[in-house]
């Protein structure tokens, strides 16, 4: 009986693996693709973040306000408590300075115009200037 149950479970396992799907199974391009690779694991597919751990990116001044501080966060990371939508987040965000200027610009432009966000594009020229200036 146990062998039968195990055989059934193995079948389920193989079905599960073949049936598993990514939320993004369409062809990704530009900012959306870069977001999925570098940001989505923490900030999630719809920019909702994780309650108590990682802040949301939707309709918050830190994302849709003037872009310089947002560029700084991505290039140099963020330490210390930060408040978003009335919640305090303490976990450090790692710097993503390994991304190129155009990549940072594409990601931020995409974030600033997704999930209901409607903010101006970020240029790679501005990213380069801020990178040069340092944190």
């Amino acid at each position, binding site marked *: 009986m146990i062998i039968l149950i*195990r055989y059934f*479970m193995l079948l389920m396992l193989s079905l599960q693996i073949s049936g598993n799907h990514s939320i993004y199974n369409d062809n990704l391009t530009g900012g959306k693709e870069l977001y999925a690779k570098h940001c989505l*694991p923490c900030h999630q597919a719809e920019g909702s973040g994780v309650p108590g751990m990682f802040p949301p990116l939707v309709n918050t001044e830190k994302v849709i306000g003037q872009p310089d501080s947002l560029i700084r966060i991505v290039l140099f990371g963020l330490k210390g408590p930060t408040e978003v939508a009335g*919640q305090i987040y303490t*976990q450090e965000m*790692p710097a993503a300075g390994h991304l190129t200027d155009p990549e940072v610009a594409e990601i931020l432009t995409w974030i600033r115009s997704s999930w209901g966000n409607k903010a101006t594009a970020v240029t790679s020229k501005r990213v380069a200037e801020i990178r040069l200036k340092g944190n």
Partner: protein
Amino acid sequence: MKPLKQLFLAVCLGASVIPFSCRGNAPSDKNPGDNGGLTLPTGFSAVIFADKLGQGRHLAVRNNGDVFLALSRLKNGKGIAALRDKNNDGIADSTLFFTDSPSTGLEIGGDFLYFSNYKEVYRVHLSKNGLIPAEAAVLIAGGFPDQTQHRDKAFTLDGAGNLYVNVGAPSNSCSQPDRSPGAPGIDPCPQLERHAGIWKFRDDKPGQDQVADGHRYASGIRNSIALAWNQSVNKLFVVQHGRDQLSLYPEVFSEKESAELPAEEFFEIDDGDFFGWPYCYYDPVRKIKLLAPEYGGDKNAVGRCADAEDPIMAFPAHMAPNDLLFYTGSMFPEKYRNGAFIAFHGSWNRAPFEQEGYYVVFIPFTGGKPSGEVEVFADGFAGVDFVKSPDDAKYRPMGLAQGPDGSLFVSDSREGRIWKISYTGSK
């Protein structure tokens, strides 16, 4: 069957230390009643004991039935809710708040309520009839490092005069920098000196300090806010939050492997045990502790992990075990006696795949060892079939506590709901 249950079955099958089928209850077995939105095995029912208390964490029930809920964000400026069911209808009708700091850990020990914030553990005397304490709280153990992740100093008591405090790791896997692509691990990891373990103290001695007075009881545990003393075998058990983000090493791990490989581990602890963090993670399919990529791991190398203690059971990755309870009541049927309930808060680190967890499981124990199949005991917290991101979940199971009548209380971290689960079937 939902993919969620399939994953659970698959990983349980691979990891089981005993030949059990690891079957959750089929939906047809469930009680069709409302049960406050939960699905439960036949014979069980639930009521909403309290609701909208804030961001709930652990909870504790006094032997007079009063319930205390820790809050991770102050509500009315206070960090603990106290609730009383005065007319004994299963629903709280009196609620008061006290203490000035947010908290997670909470337990009753004798006539005292023990509670912790991010740096200290306190206890306060409970009067015979008062719902909230009239006396000032006394610091029992402190000097713990404040930290920006895994901050909760959750704890448990052994009933024999000792307090065991979890100090989580202040990082994912002790790399420099933390959580950055390809970053190497610091070797040896200096974080192990003050973090990533369980520290033991006296439960009645005021003003103890982690370094001066604490005994490092176990180490190499990344974070285990799910910890409980098993009275039937007089031992400490914890369930670890396993590491995140193997995908930071894309030359070794695929996104799917990152989502599924590093198991949540269930540990039985003896004094002095070392469980492997940050050097190791546990592969639940191959049932082996492997070297982490920060320390040269390539998905196959074992290295120093051969010396780390193995889990007694492994669960699917990232499900976030947030509380553990060994059932000692007599209300539930015999198979539940001395068995383990675990609240899985639910994952975030499976993105872009569907998230997992968001339920309470039960594992029967005999002689202090798992002795039967894992079952999903209480489900339906999320309120949706498909959790893409944790924010989709309406409720998330967080804390567990046993009532004096043997009922099981479960708290939620999103809205501050508390369910009281009772057995009403025939035995």
